[in-house]
C-alpha cells in the first residue's frame, strides 16, 4: 500500500489541497495566510491549547458540552446559552451526520427543512455548508475557545473551513473517526485523509498558530476496554505528531468502575508520553479528556443526573484536563439548550466540590495501571511489528489481523471478534479477546475476572452477559446481573 507514517511533502499537499477546496463552493472562502493572521489576532482566553495548558498547570478539570443545530443564529444562541447559563469552560460545534458523510447536498436540504419546520432537522451544525465567514461569526460570538467535534472519515474540507473559521481545536483521527463511524471506508483512505488534516494543523503550528488535536477516545462508547481505546488514541497521536501537530488531547470514555477509570486516565497520558518520546517527537503538549459514560443512558432524567454526576466525580478524582458532559435528555434525543446546560451545571458542581481532592494511589490502582500498560504495549508493539516499524502500515495490517479490535464497531475493516464484559466490580474485561496479542499472564487475569463474575451469577459467561451489560446503566445498574 502507498501509505506510510511520513510527513506529507509540501507540493503533494498543495496539489491535493486545490482538489479538496473545490469539493463544495465554500471551500473557495479559505485563505491560509489570512487565516493565520486571523488566529494570531485572537485573545489567549479563546485559544484552546492555551486554556488547556492553564488547566493542566492548575490541576483543574474543564467542562465542555456537545452541541450543534442546523441554522447559524440558532447555533450561536445555543453556544451563548451554554456559556452564560451552563457555565461551560470550553465550547463545541458538533457537526451533523450528513456533513460527516460528506453529503453536503443532503445537509443543504436539512438546512432548508429546518428553516421551514422552525426546528433543527439536523443533528448538528453543517459547518461546510455555512462556510468560513459563518464559522468566524460563531467564534466571535462567544468568550471561550471553540472546538470542531464530528465523526467524519474524510474531514479535509470540513477542517480547512473550520480552522480558517477560527476554531482552535479539532476532534478525530483516521482510526477513531472511521471504525466507529463508517462501514466500508478503508483505513488506508481515512488515515491518509487525516494525515492531511494533521498536516494542515502542522502548517498552522509552523506559522505560529497552535491548533489542538483530539483523537476521539470513546470509539463505540460501549464497553470499550481501556487498552483498546488507548492503543487507538496513542497511534493517532503518533500519526499527528509526525505531521507536525504539537498539542494533543488524549481521550477516554468512562467505563464506570472508579479504580479502572482513574487508572485508565492516568496511563493514557503516561503511555502517550512514552511512545512520543520513543519516536523522538519532542515538546508535544499532552492533555487528557474524560468522557462521561458514552453508552446507553437511563431515560429518567433524575437517573441521568446520577450517571452524569458520577462521571464528573471520576473525572475530578482522576484529574482529567477536561470532561465531556452528557445531558438528562441523552437517552431520548438531542438535548434542548436547557437540558444541555443542566448537565453542565450538575457536572461543574461536582468538579468544583472535588477540585482539591484526588484518589490516593493504592495497590489496586497500581495493578490496574500495570495491566492497562502491558495490554496497550502488547497491542501497539504488535502493530509496529506488522508495519515493519511504520505505525500507519501497522495500523492497517493490525486491524486486518485483529490484533487491534473495537467492540460493536460497524466497520467491515474491524475484526469484531472481541467480546467485553464487566467483572464483579464493574470493571470492563475481556470475555473473548479475539486475536489481541496478549500473553498468558494477561489472559489469565481476564479469564479469572470473568470467571468470578460467572460464578457469582451462577451462569456461564456468554453473549447474553454482554447484552445485559450493554443495557445495565440504562436500567439503573452498572453490572448487568441476571434477573432473579
Amino acid at each position, binding site marked *: 500500500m502507498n501509505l506510510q507514517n511520513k510527513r506529507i511533502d509540501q507540493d503533494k499537499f498543495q496539489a491535493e489541497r486545490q482538489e479538496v477546496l473545490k469539493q463544495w463552493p465554500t471551500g473557495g472562502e479559505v485563505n491560509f495566510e489570512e487565516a493565520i493572521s486571523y488566529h494570531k489576532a485572537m485573545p489567549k482566553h479563546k485559544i484552546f491549547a492555551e486554556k488547556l495548558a492553564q488547566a493542566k498547570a492548575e490541576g483543574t478539570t474543564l467542562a465542555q458540552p456537545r452541541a450543534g443545530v442546523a441554522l447559524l443564529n440558532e447555533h450561536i444562541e445555543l453556544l451563548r446559552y451554554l456559556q452564560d447559563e451552563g457555565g461551560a469552560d470550553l465550547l463545541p460545534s458538533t457537526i451533523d*451526520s450528513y456533513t460527516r458523510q460528506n453529503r453536503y447536498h*443532503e445537509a443543504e436540504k*436539512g438546512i432548508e427543512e429546518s428553516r421551514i419546520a422552525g426546528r433543527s*432537522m439536523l443533528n448538528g451544525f453543517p459547518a461546510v455548508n455555512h462556510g468560513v465567514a459563518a464559522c468566524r461569526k460563531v467564534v466571535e460570538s462567544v468568550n471561550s475557545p471553540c472546538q470542531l467535534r464530528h465523526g467524519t472519515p474524510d474531514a479535509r474540507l470540513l477542517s480547512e473551513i473550520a480552522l480558517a473559521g477560527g476554531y482552535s481545536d479539532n476532534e478525530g483521527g483516521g482510526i477513531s473517526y472511521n471504525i466507529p463511524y463508517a462501514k466500508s471506508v478503508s483505513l488506508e483512505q481515512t488515515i491518509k485523509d487525516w494525515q492531511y488534516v494533521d498536516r494542515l494543523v502542522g502548517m498552522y503550528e509552523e506559522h505560529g498558530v497552535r491548533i489542538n488535536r483530539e483523537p476521539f477516545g470513546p470509539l463505540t462508547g460501549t464497553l470499550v476496554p481501556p487498552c483498546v481505546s488507548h492503543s487507538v488514541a496513542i497511534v493517532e497521536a503518533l500519526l499527528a505528531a509526525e505531521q507536525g501537530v504539537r498539542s494533543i488531547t488524549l481521550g477516554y470514555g468512562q467505563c464506570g468502575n472508579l479504580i479502572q477509570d482513574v487508572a485508565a486516565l492516568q496511563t493514557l497520558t503516561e503511555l502517550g508520553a512514552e511512545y512520543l518520546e520513543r519516536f523522538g517527537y519532542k515538546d508535544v503538549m499532552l492533555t487528557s479528556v474524560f468522557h462521561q459514560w458514552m453508552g446507553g443512558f437511563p*431515560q429518567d432524567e433524575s437517573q441521568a443526573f446520577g450517571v452524569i454526576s458520577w462521571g464528573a466525580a471520576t473525572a475530578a478524582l482522576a484529574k482529567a484536563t477536561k470532561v465531556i458532559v452528557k445531558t438528562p435528555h441523552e437517552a431520548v434525543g438531542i*438535548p434542548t439548550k436547557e437540558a444541555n446546560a443542566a448537565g453542565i451545571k450538575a457536572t461543574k458542581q461536582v468538579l468544583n466540590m472535588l477540585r482539591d481532592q484526588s484518589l490516593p494511589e493504592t495497590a489496586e490502582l497500581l495493578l490496574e495501571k500495570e495491566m492497562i500498560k502491558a495490554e496497550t504495549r502488547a497491542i501497539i508493539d504488535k502493530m509496529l511489528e506488522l508495519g515493519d516499524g511504520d505505525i500507519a502500515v501497522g495500523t492497517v495490517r493490525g486491524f486486518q489481523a485483529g490484533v487491534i479490535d473495537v467492540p*460493536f464497531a460497524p466497520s467491515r475493516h474491524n475484526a469484531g471478534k472481541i467480546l467485553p464484559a464487566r467483572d464483579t466490580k464493574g470493571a470492563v474485561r475481556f470475555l473473548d479477546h479475539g486475536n489481541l496479542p496478549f500473553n498468558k499472564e494477561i489472559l489469565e487475569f481476564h479469564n479469572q475476572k470473568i470467571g468470578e463474575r460467572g460464578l457469582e451469577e451462577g451462569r456461564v459467561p456468554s453473549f447474553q452477559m454482554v447484552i445485559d451489560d450493554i443495557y445495565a446503566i440504562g436500567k439503573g445498574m452498572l453490572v448487568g446481573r441476571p434477573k432473579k
Partner: protein
Amino acid sequence: MKNKTVVLGVIGADVHAVGNRVLDYAMSTAGFKVINIGVLASQEEFISAAIETGADFILVSSLYGHGEIDCRGLRDKCREAGIGEITMYVGGNLVVGKQDWGKVEKTFLEMGFDRAYPPGTMPDILLEHLAADLSK
C-alpha cells in the same frame, strides 16, 4: 418463527450499530432468518434485500435523529418494486430531540410503517409483535 425472514438495517447516514447487533441476536435466537444489512443502509438496499430473500418483514432502525428525512417515500418505493404490502416496522430515536411520542408515532405510521417504536424499546416487545402479526 421457523423460516420467517426479516430484513434488518439502520437507515441513512446512521452508524449506530449496537442496537442492530442486539436485535439481530434476539431475532436469530428466536428462530428468525435475519438478513442484517447493517448501518448506513439506503432505502434501495432494504428493498432489494427484501426482494432477493422474499422477506416477510422490513425492520428499519434510525437512532441519530434524521429518521424523518431518511424514511420518507420508503413505502412508495416498495410499491414500485412490487412489495407494497410487506410489513414494515421502524424504531429507535426517530426524530431530533425529545418530542411527544404520540405525534412522532403518527408521523411514521402515516409514512406507511405498520408499527413504530419509541427510544429504548426492548427486543422482547419486538418479538411479541412479530409473532402477533404473523398469526394474523
